[in-house]
């Protein structure tokens, strides 16, 4: 088997899996009938359609273009880790440590995702953004955000 587009090959398989997963999941709910469609009717149909579309993407990846073309390419692991990690960190720490502590740490953590990271800029940015966000969201818009650690 010769793969012509790596990106389509992988994404086609993913779509087929997701579509089938939804379709199979939908069988847990009553399908109903055309006259009285149940909760499983719409998701089952959609799941099948998605799987078919995934199939089209998949088979086309075997046909068009030069061999082994359209590679997936290098994954930016560092950016992926820092960005996703800092969001999860923020979600986890905000209710526990409060805004004043978790927010600046999150910004420094996020900044590490960039290729031009320097501690000076990141810390400066963290201070500015924390003060700004405090003024806008907490002092100005009085949003309900925990400020200080929960154990204090």
């Amino acid at each position, binding site marked *: 088997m010769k793969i012509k587009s790596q*990106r389509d090959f992988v994404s086609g398989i993913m779509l087929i899996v997701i579509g089938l997963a939804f379709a199979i999941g939908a069988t847990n709910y009553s399908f109903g009938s*055309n006259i009285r469609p149940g909760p499983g009717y719409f998701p089952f149909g959609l799941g099948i359609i998605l799987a078919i579309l995934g199939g089209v993407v998949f088979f086309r990846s075997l046909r068009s273009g030069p061999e082994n073309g359209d590679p997936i390419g290098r994954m930016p692991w560092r950016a992926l880790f820092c960005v996703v990690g800092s*969001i999860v960190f923020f979600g986890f720490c*905000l209710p526990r440590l409060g805004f004043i502590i978790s927010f600046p740490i999150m910004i420094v953590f996020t900044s590490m995702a*960039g290729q031009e990271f320097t501690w000076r800029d990141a810390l400066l940015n963290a201070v500015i953004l924390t003060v700004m966000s405090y003024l806008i969201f907490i002092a100005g*818009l009085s949003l309900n955000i925990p400020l200080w650690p929960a154990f204090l």
Partner: protein
Amino acid sequence: MDLFHNLYIGFQTALTFANLWYAFMGCVLGTLIGVLPGLGPIATIAMLLPTMYSLQPTSALIMLAGIYYGAQYGGSTTAILINVPGEASSVVTALDGYQMARKGRAGTALATSALGSFFAGTVGTLVVAAFAPALTSLAFEFGAPEYFALMFLGLIGAVVLASGSLVKALAMVVLGLLLGQINTDVQTAVPRFSFNIPELMDGINFVVIAMGVFSFGEIIANLGKSAEHREVFVKKVTGLWPTKKDFKDASPAAVRGTLLGCLLGVLPGAGPMLASFTSYAVEKKLSKHPEEFGKGAIQGVAAPEAANNAGAQTSFIPMLTLGIPTSAVMALMIGAMTIMGIQPGPTVMTSNPTLFWGLICSMWVGNFMLVILNLPLIGIWVKLLTVPYRFLFPAIMAFCAIGVYTLSNNTFDVYCAAAFAVFGFLTHKFGFEAAPLILGFILGPMMEENLRRALLMARGDWSVFVTRPISAVMLLLALVMMIVIALPSISKKRQEAFVDEE
């Protein structure tokens, strides 16, 4: 005359001090986020949503609308000055606008864009005011099959406009519809696909998806690319006022763009964007010097800018008359209405006339403010463009994280957004476009409900969608769109149109 009476009510509402202030705030914020990359109107409105409870519904909607069209103005500014379209609908503006800027005519391009948009906004406002009542009465004729067909048309519109492969765009729409199925079934109260997680039983908030995919996912993708330089070509914008010849060249184009925009903007899905693409193509066809397009033709700025602004106005029509969100921003506006206890739909006009007409008139007021904000004060926005990305992306991340958290003061939403960040990055990587996904997700539950209701009504007969005239026309339109796009000559053109975007 009714129209004048209605406009009178509207201006009375829009011109109160408080509402002028909110319109102004909305426009400033909108321009700001339109100029800054990565922070779109969706994220901004989502962040402000929790603060809306304390406002008058009319003021809140006026401000949200201001953010929406303010972002469009700001998006055109970046399109012209640095060849980075801030919003999808200003993609075409970048083609000729940036070339004009390179030739030292940045001021003229900006002024053409602002004045064209203002003219279009004025006409668009009048069109909305004149036709919304008529369409509202039509809306009462709409049954479940018509709603379903209209939403189907909207989804096809979004697919047709997505860049890249059609099959991939269709897959994204279907995936969006499926994600919308994670909820509790309205008719039988069965929780679906929720794995006993209480937060999932209410469905995922679409803001979580939008922020995850568009803000976070895009940041990862951007950082993955080799360091890109945002070159600000123009340090100081001079020569704002267009010459007589410019006026003569640009005016007819702006008028045609406005007409097209008013017409196409009503289409659910991607009205303003469709309008700007089409009007650019039309100008190129009509021009005696088509070879100038892409090299700084003033018509290539005037027409699409007028079209997308007119389209932005008339895209309020389906939202105001039918209660159907035609884009993520409209979905947020509907969300804001619901928060404040107003049921969106054809009854808004009669039950809340001051809100309805106040909002429409404030659009004109807002457009006027935007001309002032964008022309004399252009220097401030240019300064903003020079902020390096390493300072910008943590700021975008930070604001979005706060926005997601404050949606319902729930960390589950934050984790969900993190998951969608990974997903958004993968869609980028695999060459899928995320916009159709969001629209599918928003329309999913409504489509299902109307499909089921339509089938129930027709006793399981699918032909109900083609035997009822309004629904048949809409499905036919969707079919025509698909066929036209699939034609070889057009699909080649379509690729050309998207080439600059990728």
